[in-house]
């Protein structure tokens, strides 16, 4: 059989609550400088939760010169455009007319498509006795806005980015809540393997930090209400954790077929080496306390990459800082890593960045690639109180320098989708036999 194609990560772009590009984000994550604060982008004073991890000082006009494009882009899509442009610049390659059809696109796209301002317009025309009355829409005064309409389509981000960057091959958008970004990158790996594309722009973008999104998560009781100490509110795996902190942002990676990337002398951060993808089929919001679901995702990712627990040096945990997620995820790590569990460094960078929802898995994949490149396992910030139910080898106090041969990144979503991505140090790839068969060591 033909050898399976490998995927190289050659470009990284980010817009996050701790930095408006990948270098700034990485620097802050490494020193545990958090991005959680009182919400400023709207008046959150009467919400039970008034803190969030907002993207700060993001100058869209400076990052995206095309004014017409900006008008068409929602807040999260602006993050996506900026992160994607950074990823292309970082990779030193972008779609050209001669190879545009060999470029593919996959994004984990957020679910919120209508802004509160747009909803207020509908409300002012259509509200009757607290209910929606469609008659208001056919009022000749109703300000129909085709640009806003385009923004509300589920694949509007795909439309914007493929058009702006000239990507003409395989393209899709996916949404599995908090697993979206991880699943998007997993699909990108498969698209490269299948030979459908030689280059991929893949990642995720989201912003639910608005009055509707904040209401939605407040109602579920999923958020930390530590309004008086925002900087410590996101403390994954700490015994006193009490919910996640809602964040926003985007992460995009440029992924290339390995041999082609090598040939052009690209700087390869890491191999995107494996994808694991499972469904908990347990409850909408949780996986089983035993770790069932995440276990299969991690095992598959390692098996797919030809990695065993002894090869893994770092796990970027989903680590949302909710009671149930962190417990289930640690149980899964124990089952999967067995006796190696105590030696593998684990951290959740959500301790700094908060939870970027559909963008989380993509940004954290970028963090894993940087961790491998820089030889640093970023810290799990704001941790003080050990939880016996979260018995993993956390990176505490400061980030840990040291070679990372291979890393995993977990993203576990509402709806039960679990994504695990495996990354390999580029030097570990040389000398490996071409993978064809699945690893026989798969548990």
């Amino acid at each position, binding site marked *: *059989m033909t050898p399976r194609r490998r995927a190289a990560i050659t470009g990284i772009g980010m817009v996050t609550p701790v930095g408006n590009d990948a270098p700034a984000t990485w620097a802050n994550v490494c020193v545990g400088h958090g991005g959680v604060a009182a919400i400023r982008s709207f*008046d959150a*004073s*009467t*919400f*039970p939760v008034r803190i969030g991890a907002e993207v700060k000082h993001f100058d869209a006009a400076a990052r995206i010169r095309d004014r017409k494009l900006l008008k068409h882009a929602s807040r999260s899509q602006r993050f996506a455009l900026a992160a994607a442009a950074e990823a292309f610049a970082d990779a030193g390659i972008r779609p050209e007319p001669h190879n545009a*059809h060999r470029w593919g696109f996959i994004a984990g*796209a957020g679910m919120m498509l*209508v802004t509160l301002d747009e*909803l*207020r317009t*509908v*409300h002012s025309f259509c509200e009757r006795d607290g209910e*929606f009355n469609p*008659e208001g829409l*056919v009022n000749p005064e109703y300000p*129909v806005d*085709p640009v806003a*309409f385009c923004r*509300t*389509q*589920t*694949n*509007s981000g*795909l*439309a914007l980015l*493929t*058009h702006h960057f000239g*990507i*003409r*091959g*395989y*393209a*899709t958008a*996916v*949404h*599995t809540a908090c697993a979206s970004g991880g*699943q998007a990158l997993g699909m990108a790996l*498969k698209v490269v393997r*299948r030979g*459908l594309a030689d280059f991929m722009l893949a990642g995720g973008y989201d912003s639910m930090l608005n009055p*509707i999104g904040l*209401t*939605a*998560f*407040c*109602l*579920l009781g999923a958020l930390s209400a530590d309004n008086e100490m925002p900087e410590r509110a996101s403390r994954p795996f700490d015994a006193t954790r009490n919910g996640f902190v809602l964040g926003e942002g985007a992460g995009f990676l440029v992924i290339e077929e390995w041999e082609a990337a090598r040939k052009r002398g690209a700087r390869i951060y890491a191999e995107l080496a494996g994808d694991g*993808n499972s*469904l*908990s*089929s347990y409850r*909408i*919001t949780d996986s089983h306390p035993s770790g069932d679901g995440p276990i*299969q995702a991690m095992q598959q990712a390692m098996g797919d990459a030809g990695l065993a627990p002894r090869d893994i040096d770092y796990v970027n945990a989903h680590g949302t800082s909710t009671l149930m997620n962190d417990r289930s995820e640690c149980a899964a790590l124990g089952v999967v890593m067995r006796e190696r569990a105590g030696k593998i460094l684990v951290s959740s960078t959500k301790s700094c960045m908060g939870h970027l929802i559909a963008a989380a898995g993509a940004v954290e994949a970028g963090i894993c690639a940087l961790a491998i490149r820089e030889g640093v396992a970023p810290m799990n910030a704001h941790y003080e109180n050990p939880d016996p139910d979260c018995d993993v080898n956390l990176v505490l106090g400061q980030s840990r320098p040291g070679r990372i041969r291979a890393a995993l990144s977990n993203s576990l979503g*509402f*709806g*039960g989708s679990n994504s695990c991505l495996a990354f390999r140090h580029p030097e570990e790839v040389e000398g490996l036999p071409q993978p*064809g068969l*699945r690893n026989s060591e798969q548990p």
Partner: protein
Amino acid sequence: MSCSGRIVITGAGAVCGAGLTIDAIWDAIINRRTAITTLRRWDSSSWPVRVAAEVTGVDNRTLVEDRKLHKLILRTDLFGIYAAGEAIRHSGLAAYRDSLDPALVAQFNDRSGVIVGSGGGVYQNNYDFFPALSSVKGDLKDFGAQSCSTVNPMWLLRNLPNNVLCHVGIRHNFKGTNACITNQCVGGLMAVAEAAAAIRAGEADRAVAVGHDNPIDPETILHYHQVGLLSPDALRPFDRRRDGTVFGEGAGAVMLEKAEDAQSRGTAVFGEYLGSGCVTEATGALDVRPDGDGLSRAIEIALDDAEITAEAVGMIVAHGNGTRASDASEALALGRVFGRSIPPVTAFKWGFGHLIAASGIVDLTLALKALEQRVVPGIATLQSVDPEFRWLTVLPNSQPARSDVAMVCCRGFGGMNMAVLVRAGTSAHRS
């Protein structure tokens, strides 16, 4: 171990305005009955668009028996969960799992995937915030207090675009590879292609692919009308008088598995998946290239993937959404790829409207039915083929299929284009 073997369809289900089963929908299509009629969900008498193909006269409990679940999901999700259940039931896989040694059941579940093409949210979800907006009277300072006390606590979960994925998983205990594709019109058909790819790559032994949507929504209709995509009365694919599309609602699902598995458990095979192609034209949200470049590239990729030539295709189910630009460019693409050897072409949307994310996968289930019957149904609303593409082999009446291979085309916003190739199965579908 990657699986280069054949992939077959052992179950299928569909629901739309034309019926609750594939056989009922087929019966309507072949007897030239359209489900497009007066839009009744709200008083549309003053609306510029007053037609749709609604699913009517069906109790929600017929679609999903569990009444508790109805409060946790949207109407579009009912359709998706129903169609997936039909496909799984039809495949006989649940009974097969029950016959397995208990030790093998967990592995069966972990190797069973769910891939969904979801229409995503509709605007109506947000109207739950109306009471809060009314009470704050324009001053948003108090919005949080009001919204957090008036909106249903389950609001977010109810509106997850991946609810069908979640609940199909829970109801059937499928726990393997999964995806929720939110790629507007092509989502459902992409779900089929991704499910097949996962089986081919050895990531799953079987997977159910689902597409579901409900665009019959006041804001959706208003916006589509405003950008000139909707017809005021009928959907007339490829007709010289075509003037837009008409919305329907519904879902389709197919169960895919390895041919050797289907054979070893002796199940009926409804069809075989051969290959697919998917590309974007990079034209932005609404525009399509006039030359049909994206669709012809998608078709070429699908033919390569299936390792067959254009001549082997015996019938084509076109996207045929009835809009001026899409139909014209689709006709050009088909002409460019197939030339004089173009097989009979049809389209089904005239019968049950444009199902958006569900359209391609419902078309696929009907394509398999057409192959089974060796009949390519006519387009009942076709009076006079647009003279710009007189060579297009569409007819008001049915035609014989030229072979046992069908191609299904699907196109969507974002310049998306897809083609999927399937072969007839060895046994008839029984709904």
